């Protein structure tokens, strides 16, 4: 075989300065997390597939690199730190002192179609907070991890930083009222901001597509209204604390993150979120650089009851976003 420097699709080697820059960023983030009281965990890159069967969505299953091991067991390469950490901690929780603050760094691999910005290996830094609080928006795990998330994002050079907030199940009542069991399809249309489908369903959904928020939280139903008010208060506090970050609440962005079983199947890869959810964009790139949220039900599915919230940041994407967009005037200048 002729030896070349080619790598499989979606893989990249970082050499020289690129490697140094990433290690530097990773080290700074690890330092920040340690200073905030988070302890590092190191997780294996290969695991059994079986423990994840009850929590895998069809989207996450399609991204897995899985295979039969030499002993005949089904194995999978690490594709997401959160479920791995949860399944390792769930049986040990009774003997652990809570709250637990943990962080990790390392690669995950996911199959993705070959296209710009869609790598198949991602280097992530993330954190998880277990056993600290009740529900989204109150003084609990969600806002604490969101604050740490914002601090880490701000350590990157990419600007502007925009973080979108929502909570799982926010639109369940509205979706079921407008479309019944076809609500999962309507949720997907809302997340794509399809104005016609939203408008045909209701004025409220059209407004949610346009602005991300109802005119009055009460329009979402009593339970969701209370959560939205608390989330808006969290946004206000954090916006004052992080004036350089564009923080917005957009319920349409997370419409497929549902809780009602009649709307199941719309949540995508991170369908385990059940409270506060957030997603970040940085610089001029269109793809998210990080995401997180509250995921108590992941532990519940694994037989443990504990509040849990966390996030992960994709370091390559965050660092890729630092270059400003080339302008027409600048390009014309280069050509002269």
């Amino acid at each position, binding site marked *: 075989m002729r030896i070349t420097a080619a790598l499989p699709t979606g893989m990249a080697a970082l050499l020289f300065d690129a490697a140094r820059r990433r290690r530097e960023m990773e080290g700074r983030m690890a330092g920040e997390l340690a200073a905030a009281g988070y302890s590092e965990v190191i997780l294996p890159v290969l695991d059994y597939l079986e423990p994840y069967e009850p929590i895998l969505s069809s989207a996450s299953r399609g991204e897995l690199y899985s295979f039969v091991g030499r002993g005949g067991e089904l194995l999978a390469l690490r594709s997401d730190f959160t479920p791995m950490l949860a399944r390792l901690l769930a049986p040990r929780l009774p003997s652990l002192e809570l709250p637990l603050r943990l962080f990790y760094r390392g690669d995950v691999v996911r199959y993705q179609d070959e296209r*710009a910005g869609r790598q198949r290996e991602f280097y992530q830094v993330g954190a998880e907070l277990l056993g600290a609080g009740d529900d989204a928006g109150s003084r609990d795990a969600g806002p604490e991890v969101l604050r740490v998330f914002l601090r880490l994002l701000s350590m990157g050079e990419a600007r502007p930083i925009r973080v979108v907030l929502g909570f799982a199940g926010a639109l369940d009542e509205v979706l079921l009222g407008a479309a019944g069991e076809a609500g999962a399809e309507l949720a997907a249309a809302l997340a*794509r901001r399809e104005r016609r489908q939203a408008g045909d369903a209701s004025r409220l959904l059209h407004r949610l597509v346009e*602005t991300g928020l109802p005119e009055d939280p009460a329009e979402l139903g009593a339970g969701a209204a209370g959560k939205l008010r608390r989330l808006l208060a969290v946004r206000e506090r954090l916006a004052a604390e992080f004036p350089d970050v564009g923080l917005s609440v957009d319920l349409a962005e997370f419409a497929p993150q549902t809780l009602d079983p009649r709307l199941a199947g719309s949540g995508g890869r991170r369908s385990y979120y059940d409270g506060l959810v957030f*997603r970040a964009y940085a610089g*001029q790139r*269109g793809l998210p650089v990080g995401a997180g949220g509250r995921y108590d039900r992941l532990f519940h599915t694994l037989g443990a009851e504990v509040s849990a919230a966390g996030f992960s940041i994709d370091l390559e994407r965050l660092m890729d976003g630092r270059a400003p967009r080339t302008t027409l005037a600048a390009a014309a200048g280069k050509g002269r």
Partner: protein
Amino acid sequence: MIRLALPKGRNLPVVTAALAAAGVDPAPIEQGERRLWLELPGEGLPGDGLEVLLLKDWDLPLYVEYGVADCGFVGTDVLDEMGGDLLVPVRLTAGHSRLSLIGRRGDLPEPGSQVRLATKYPRTARRLVAERSWGAEVIKLSGSIELAPLLDLAEIALDIVQTGRTLEENHLAELEVVAEVAPCLVVNRASYQQHRETLNDLVGRMEAAEVAR
């Protein structure tokens, strides 16, 4: 300034007409001839104007998804084939066509039969075949799809039909309409958060002029 990607192909006149109806003067595009990157300054534009990229249809979703462009117009045929995670706020009311199964014999394949299907849309074709009672080997072609069933490269083809005149002239029949196709506005999620008001303004003008819905 928002950067808008426009398709260089058959949808360009439809899209520039829609922009004109929304108060954006497309003259620099029409006069630009070979320019692939230009600005549309002037009054009545949302925000502080538009920067325009002219791209091949098949490349346009990538430019938008990656964030090189904030938004763009592309046919739903290309968008469905490419996949990806883009917002699709509106479709234009003009420039519609059909994605159809076409063939020489006038009938769809018999249940249980295995055929060859020629197309520019292999993923869409595979999804379609997965739900049929007949099977197909999907053959990816880049153009002149109609020739494939005529010359027996394939029994059927999946392609865009606009007026049906090409089919008629080549003794082919439209066997089944698979999807209605329309140019649509696509936006990446990050740009939507950053330029929401401007984009809503542009889309609102198009809806008011009834060139988009």
